[in-house]
């Protein structure tokens, strides 16, 4: 692989870019791999990458029905944070966040991680208490967060309205090293690095069956033929249920549409990510200048990647109230993704009833920020059969009633 650098860019400029090679190879599938990962989104590619990097397992194929990075990796609002309340969540999201810090260097691909800071606004007394609790927990989890004053909120984000008539800003949970990254680049960077390690990324290849024998996985049948493997990782957000059914087990998952939108680009006016949970909206500004906006998910099962407009309306209404200056900006682009919702809204990274088959799914609305940590933990789980990062995210937790519930701040007081 030719390394990317300022020098390489200059060299290629002088010879009209003729020297750039393919970012990833275009291989035909082999007969057999040590590990097959189904799904070349961020999570699948990261899993493959860390299998190679951390465990030397490089005889790996990543099989993708469509195009790599074409699912939720490229359809989210690119927020990266790890200010979660529960220990298992904080562990995997912080692992991810810390890997993001150096990911551009690790992959030799600028994924534009921008640790500009993430704030979650407290707009009720109840939210203040909830975020203070999170700050205490984060402190013990090694996640740097602070509860900050309204004045500090305004200083960090001048376009915010502190004294909204309905929900004045009472403070915020501030994670200074949270931020954003260029979502497509994360998939492309991992793909390029995987390909460089000799792994095969096979696009336009749909898995139609999972073959097993004696309760153990044997391989997959695809639109490009049968491919054998020792171990199989299923990492197909939005379609996990379909694959699980092929493997013969059920998942506590429902697929729903989540929507996001961007405004037209404007000059820099917001250098932090703001989440306002009381009014259900969040916003940041991309490097292109677009205001990137997200909100709530639909309540019904949906595979169309089209959500319902009233959610957009609710989100925009909330954000116009929080950031009045956006009222005369215009919505440029709107899109939807299919997200997997589990029973406790936390992900599943787990062994399955089928020996040799592992599953990573259920990231709901929070998958992008977890990609490196999820890949790291998943690779360890596949390679060694156990990972402290994924230990609490097993499928068995639903049976035991051992939930990882991050929505606890949503309780309602007297």
């Amino acid at each position, binding site marked *: 692989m030719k390394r990317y650098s300022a020098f390489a860019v200059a060299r290629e400029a002088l010879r009209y870019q003729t020297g750039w090679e393919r970012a990833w190879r275009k291989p035909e599938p082999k007969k057999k791999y040590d590990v097959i990962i189904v799904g070349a989104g961020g999570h699948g590619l990261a899993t493959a990458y860390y299998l190679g990097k951390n465990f030397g397992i490089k005889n790996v194929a990543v099989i993708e029905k469509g195009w790599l990075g074409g699912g939720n990796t490229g359809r989210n609002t690119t927020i990266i944070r790890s200010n979660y309340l529960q220990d298992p969540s904080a562990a995997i999201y912080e692992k991810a966040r810390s890997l993001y810090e150096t990911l551009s260097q690790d992959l030799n691909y600028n994924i534009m991680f921008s640790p500009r800071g993430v704030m979650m606004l407290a707009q009720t007394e109840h939210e203040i208490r909830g975020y203070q609790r999170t700050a205490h927990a984060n402190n013990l989890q090694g996640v740097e967060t602070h509860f900050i004053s309204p004045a500090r909120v305004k200083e960090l984000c001048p376009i915010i309205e502190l004294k909204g008539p309905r929900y004045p800003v009472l403070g915020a949970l501030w994670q200074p090293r949270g931020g954003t990254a260029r979502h497509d680049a994360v998939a492309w960077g991992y793909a390029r690095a995987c390909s460089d390690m000799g792994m095969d990324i096979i696009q336009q290849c749909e898995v139609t069956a999972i073959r097993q024998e004696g309760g153990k996985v044997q391989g997959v049948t695809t639109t490009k033929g049968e491919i054998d493997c020792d171990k199989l990782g299923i990492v197909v957000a939005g379609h996990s249920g379909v694959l699980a059914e092929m493997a013969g087990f059920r*998942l*506590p998952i*429902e*697929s729903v549409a989540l929507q996001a939108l961007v405004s037209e680009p404007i000059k820099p006016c917001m250098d932090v990510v703001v989440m306002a949970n009381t009014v259900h909206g969040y916003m940041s500004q991309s490097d292109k200048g677009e205001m990137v906006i997200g909100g709530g998910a639909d309540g*019904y*099962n949906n595979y*169309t990647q089209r959500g*319902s407009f*009233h959610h957009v309306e609710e989100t925009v209404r909330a954000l116009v109230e929080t950031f009045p200056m956006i009222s005369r900006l215009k919505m440029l682009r709107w899109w939807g993704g299919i997200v997997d919702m589990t029973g406790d809204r936390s992900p599943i990274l787990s062994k399955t009833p089928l020996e040799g088959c592992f599953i990573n799914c259920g990231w709901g609305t929070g998958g992008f920020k977890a990609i490196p940590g999820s890949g790291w933990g998943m690779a360890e789980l596949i390679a060694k059969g156990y990972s402290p990062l994924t230990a609490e995210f097993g499928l068995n937790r639903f*049976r035991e009633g051992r939930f990882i519930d991050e929505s606890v701040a949503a309780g309602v007081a007297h």
Partner: protein
Amino acid sequence: MLLINCPYCGVAAEETELHAGGEAHLKRFGPDSSDDDFTGYLFHRENPKGVHFERWRHVNGCGKWFHAARCTNTLEVFGTYSAQTTEPPKDLLDTLRAKRPGFKWRNIA
């Protein structure tokens, strides 16, 4: 932006009048049930890419819960029916068999 007929008041209700209530025809498992049955009841949901039976409530309307058969991939609504039943009515199943030959949902086909 779905439009679903409420079988109780006859209104073609837009989604903002409705509340989605998840999978239909769940059988409740109580205190003496096995772990498997109880976990299945609480968490294991049908999640088909295709025909789905589900519950809705006409919350900003007559307040009634009802059932709907809907395709999660095209959003076609095949029909709605009473909440007070443990299985879809026969005429709806006939419609489905005609429109979606080979459809399968749990043990309904």
